[in-house]
Structure formats: structure tokens, C-alpha cells
């Protein structure tokens, strides 16, 4: 029998009603000082925890978030022995407490933005081709290769500069309501931005309003707003293990 870990809460109190975890097994709590680890027993190997179970993991965290500040553990965090879990809780207590303090009353929101990356590259390329001196004569193969590579380099850079301008505008809508943020730009040509913001509960309404006004202000971009989520992207300590 292994121990599946969902996260840590900032209390040694618990929710009165039972919460069902992975495979419908009720979660239990291991308290230590003023925090508790939330776990459930798990019969099987890590390979048995398929991606489809991520919703069960998420559901437990959501229930906990209604009452506590939660430090979410990575999906699929499994320990074999209870004594290892207890020792991890004791060893990292100070780090857990620090993270819980930083994340108290905050939740994560994700903003994804798609732009017409392919079209923008085409546009830059055609502008560039129009302005380029095409009087090149009998250039050698090596030089021709370098010229083509250099053209591509300049087009890529212009593309990135345009992306940065657009990201700065988008980020300005949200960053004033967030205490921390993580921006991942151009994960693909079209996915301009994948941004995570840590937002205080009291400012979540403002954050959502900022999204609504951004959406209303531009019809060229596609947006995805999601949250509130447990603050997966803002936990600093790496304590989960496979």
C-alpha cells in the first residue's frame, strides 16, 4: 500500500465532511505543528495513475482551497512508506511554512493568447523581400547560404520584437492585480503568451474585469482565461518525487 500526496494545508484542522481522493478513497491528514499533509492510500504502481485521474487530484485540491491555503503537490506524487512522508514533512517544515505564508489567500490564473503568428511572419517576410537588395550576382554557395540564414535571422528577430510589444501591452492589463507572475512567450509561432499570475482573493474580481476589458479591446487576438487554480507555478520548493 503506497501513500498518494495531494498537498499541504496551513492548518491542522480538517474539513468535517469526507473528501474522496483517487479511486474514490477518502483523503486523510497527517498533522505536524500548524500544517497538515493531505494524503490517501493507494494500491498499485505509479503507472496506474493515468492522466485521466488528474481531475480527481484537482478535485481534492479545490475542496481544500475552499477552506485553507493549499500548497499543491505535483500530480502523481507517491511515497511507499508512511515514515518517509512524515520525515519529509518534518525536514521541509520551514520551507512549507514559508511558501504557505507567501501564497496565503492567493490563487493562480492562467492567460493564454493566440495571435496570427504565421500571417505576421508572412507579412514581415514580404516587407523584407520588397526592401531587400536583390541585385546579388554570382555569389558562391557558402555566401548565399549565409545571406539566406541572415535574412531568416532578421525576420525572426523582428517577429520576436513585435511579440514583445504585444506581450507588454497584454501584461499591463494584469500585472497590477497580481503579486507574482510567470510569462512564457512564443511557445509556438501562434501561441504568443502563456502567462501565470498569482492573485490575491480580494483582487480576483478586478483581475477578471481586466480580462474582460482586454478581450473587448482587441478582436485580432484569441484569449483563454482560466482559474482560480491551486498555485502550482508559484511553489518554490521542489519536494515531490516520483
Amino acid at each position, binding site marked *: 500500500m503506497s501513500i498518494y500526496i495531494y498537498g499541504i494545508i496551513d492548518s491542522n484542522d480538517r474539513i468535517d465532511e469526507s473528501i474522496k481522493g483517487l479511486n474514490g478513497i477518502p483523503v486523510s491528514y497527517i498533522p505536524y505543528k500548524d500544517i497538515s499533509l493531505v494524503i490517501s492510500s493507494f494500491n498499485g504502481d505509479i503507472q496506474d495513475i493515468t492522466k485521466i485521474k488528474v481531475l480527481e487530484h484537482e*478535485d481534492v485540491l479545490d475542496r481544500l482551497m475552499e477552506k485553507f491555503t493549499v500548497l499543491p503537490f505535483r500530480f502523481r506524487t507517491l511515497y511507499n512508506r508512511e515514515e518517509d512522508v512524515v520525515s519529509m514533512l518534518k525536514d521541509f517544515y520551514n520551507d512549507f511554512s514559508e511558501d504557505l505564508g507567501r501564497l496565503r489567500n492567493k490563487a493562480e490564473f492562467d492567460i493564454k493568447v*493566440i495571435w496570427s503568428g504565421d500571417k505576421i511572419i508572412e507579412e514581415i517576410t514580404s516587407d523584407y523581400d520588397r526592401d531587400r537588395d536583390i541585385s546579388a550576382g554570382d555569389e558562391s554557395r557558402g555566401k548565399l547560404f549565409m545571406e539566406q*540564414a541572415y535574412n531568416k535571422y532578421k525576420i525572426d528577430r523582428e517577429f520576436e520584437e513585435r511579440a514583445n510589444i504585444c506581450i507588454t501591452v497584454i501584461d499591463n492589463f494584469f500585472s497590477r492585480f497580481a503579486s507574482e507572475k510567470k510569462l512564457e512567450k512564443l511557445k509556438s509561432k501562434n*501561441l504568443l503568451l502563456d502567462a501565470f499570475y498569482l492573485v490575491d482573493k480580494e483582487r480576483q474580481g478586478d483581475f477578471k474585469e481586466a*480580462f474582460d476589458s482586454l478581450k473587448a479591446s482587441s478582436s485580432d487576438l484569441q484569449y483563454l482565461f482560466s482559474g482560480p487554480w491551486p498555485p502550482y507555478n508559484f511553489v518554490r520548493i521542489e519536494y515531490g518525487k516520483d
Partner: protein
Amino acid sequence: MGKIETNSPEMFIEEMERINSPLPERINTGPENIEAGLGKLVLTLIELIRTLMERQAMRRMEKGSLSDIEIERIGETLMKLENKVQELKELLGIKDEELNLNLGPLGNLM
């Protein structure tokens, strides 16, 4: 559960699938596919080095610190390297988008 709101669900599903699908979480090496698995890893590293060399050359071209002879020589080298990588990819049946590694929290290698 957190709420999800979007003006274009299909586009996001398609984009996320495209980003996630070509990158395996692990390189699959077993007795039957050891050549392809190792080949992919070696080619990924060669491609990384080639890209870094090319970017360095581009920066130097931009600054005007390369002579015509140097441009010619570097161009020949990079071109031959690119052709060789292409040949090896075809030989091992590896696609362009497979030449990458997911480095977890650090993102993708290239």
C-alpha cells in the same frame, strides 16, 4: 474547479496539442530501437550546436566583423553540417520536430 473562458476553444485545443505532441517525456530506448533513440539524442545535440554556431555567425555578420572569405568559409561549413544532419534524419526516420528534448521546468532544449 477553476473556470475556463475562451473565445476560441478549438484553436487552443489544436495549439496545445501541437505543442505537446511531438515531444516525448522520455527518450524511448530499448534493444529494438536503440539506434533510433540514441540517433535522435545525438542529432538533437548536433542540431543545438549547429544552431548556436549559426546564431553566433549571424551576430558577427550584423556587427560587420566577418570578412567575405570568413563568411564564405562559415557558410560552407554550416551548409555541409545542415546537409549531413538532414541525411542522418532521413536515414533514421526522424522528423524535424522530434529533434528536441523536454527539460521539464527549464522548457524545451530548442
